[in-house]
């Protein structure tokens, strides 16, 4: 691991790795060397596990935003056996913050749709760091409707800090397109699988987030607001981002407990950025398993249970003594 690119809490892991690398490169082969390397590797595994099993909420955000973390473009390459990209929203443009197209995953034909963050500075600014404009959400919906026409299941990969906050975005109806996407996804007549692969930033995530199965990669987060935004409003300073991150309870384990997501996809030891191949393999296995389950079902059943899934969300109290006025002339 490149030390410049490691997070502060990854330091002990990084140091052990460096020691192993030094031994392997510089010491002549010997029984002692082999033994020491074996010891260090054992330590490395223990330390990595300790760090990554006990990530704080804020550390999870740092992992989810890690610049080496696999993005949609990586999964399109590593998960899909074939990918035929489809561009444009037929209305305004081709938002680079959303990638979409036909793909094959083993025996399944799917429509892949995902937020794209980019890796080089040029790529990142072309897609506004993964923040889609209204044309991005319209592009996603256009491709989903195409998929539904031919009963092709939809897979969405969610990875965005949020929908883009800008003048053009408001002029072209950012609020409207996010609402419309949830509205149409709730009744889209093809199976939909949603996976949060990094950042699940608020409405911008939810615009691709209504489906039959919702999963998160282990160290991703999914939140009503960014920890910085929440800290700015409720703590009056971004410096409280770590406190806000904890308070929002947005890690995969929390969301599973709250019944908001169905599944957590485990990441390799040390996080997805340590091993793109292994993460992609886990994601692929998950998608195949869910497709195998969903594809044979009738569309009416799928739509009904998708509705029920979101219908159940929320936590409130209800006084059983209080009753509503009776219903009238029901249809």
């Amino acid at each position, binding site marked *: 691991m490149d030390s410049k690119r490691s997070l502060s809490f990854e330091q002990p892991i990084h140091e052990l790795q460096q020691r192993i690398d030094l031994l392997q490169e510089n010491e002549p082969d010997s029984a002692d060397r082999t033994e020491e390397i074996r010891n260090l590797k054992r330590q490395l595994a223990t330390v990595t596990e300790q760090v990554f099993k006990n990530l704080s909420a804020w550390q999870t955000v740092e992992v989810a935003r890690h610049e080496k973390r696999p993005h949609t473009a990586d999964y399109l390459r590593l998960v899909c056996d074939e990918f035929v990209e489809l561009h444009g929203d037929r209305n305004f443009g081709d938002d680079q913050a959303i990638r979409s197209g036909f793909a094959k995953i083993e025996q399944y034909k799917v429509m892949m749709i995902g937020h794209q963050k980019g890796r080089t500075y040029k790529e990142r600014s072309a897609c506004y760091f993964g923040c889609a404009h209204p044309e991005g959400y319209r592009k996603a919906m256009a491709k989903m409707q195409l998929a539904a026409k031919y009963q092709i299941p939809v897979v969405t990969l969610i990875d965005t800090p949020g929908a883009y906050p800008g*003048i053009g*975005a408001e002029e072209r109806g950012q*609020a409207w397109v996010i*609402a419309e996407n*949830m*509205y149409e996804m709730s009744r889209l007549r093809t199976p939909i699988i949603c996976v949060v692969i990094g950042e699940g930033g608020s*409405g911008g995530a939810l615009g691709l987030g209504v489906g039959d199965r919702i999963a998160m990669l282990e160290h991703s987060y999914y939140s009503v607001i960014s920890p910085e935004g929440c800290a700015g409003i409720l703590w009056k300073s971004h410096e409280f981002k770590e406190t806000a991150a904890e308070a929002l309870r947005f890690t995969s384990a929390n969301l599973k407990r709250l019944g908001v997501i169905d599944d957590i996809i485990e990441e390799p030891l040390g996080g997805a950025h340590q091993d793109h191949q292994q993460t992609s393999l886990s994601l692929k296995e998950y998608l195949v398993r869910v497709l195998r389950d969903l594809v044979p079902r009738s569309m009416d059943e799928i739509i009904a249970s998708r509705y029920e899934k979101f219908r159940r969300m929320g936590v409130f109290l209800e006084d059983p003594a209080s009753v509503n006025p009776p*219903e009238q002339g029901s*249809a």
Partner: protein
Amino acid sequence: MKRQKRGVPEGLWQRCPGCQNVIFRKEAERRLNICPECEHHFYVSAQERIRQVLDEGTFEEWDQALVPTDPLEFKDRKKRYSERLQAEQLRTGLSDAAVTGAGMIRARRVAFGVTDSAFIMGSMGSVVGERLTRLIERAGREQLPLIIISGSGGGARMHEGILSLMQMAKVSAALAQYDQLGGLFISVLTNPTMGGVAASFASLGDLVLAEPKALIGFAGPRTIKNTIHIELPKGFQTSEFLLEHGFVDRIVTRQRLKSEIAQLIDYCGK
């Protein structure tokens, strides 16, 4: 529902944010809380909305029994969410930011919902989402036209975290089902309608009406300014701006709101 106190400070006079004139409060109240000088539409409470839009004495409240709780045990700099809820309930007389039920508009029975921007900025948490969803579902079963008047600067309520975000999906899915049943949904946007409320039920009307000069949008103006570092154009994110860009069907003054809703219901044959 009891109201002990209003969500705005009491006083005989108030300064109008529209024209900066000092207005005799009673005079504005007589005119549906509209500035007599410049037609600026002041805040009105959920109760006041019900009085202004529904025929007198026809409102029956639904799902009053739902009360918010604190599922995340959320605590911000100042207080626990549970304490904040109590304080807001005392201050506004509301149990949460949405009031729902049925009533008559010029003798037409409708399902009616309103969010009150005085209760934690009119934000949507589990109770607001659940009340609206039940309202929409019942409107579908009883074949009633649906009117929702939104006032929410807060969008999805942070204190309930992801559960608030999911209310956006829940309510939108209910509206899609209602649409499938042929229901008529008239959404009325008032000052302010932002964030997760704008990006869910508020923008999903078959007809979208807006009060004049209301602030309506997805991202808050300050967030946008901090992102793009340029001054925002005059009139940005107002009702008029959204009408110009094609997202609002009509801008309707408060005096005309009730009769226009009745007229639109008649056009759609409900």
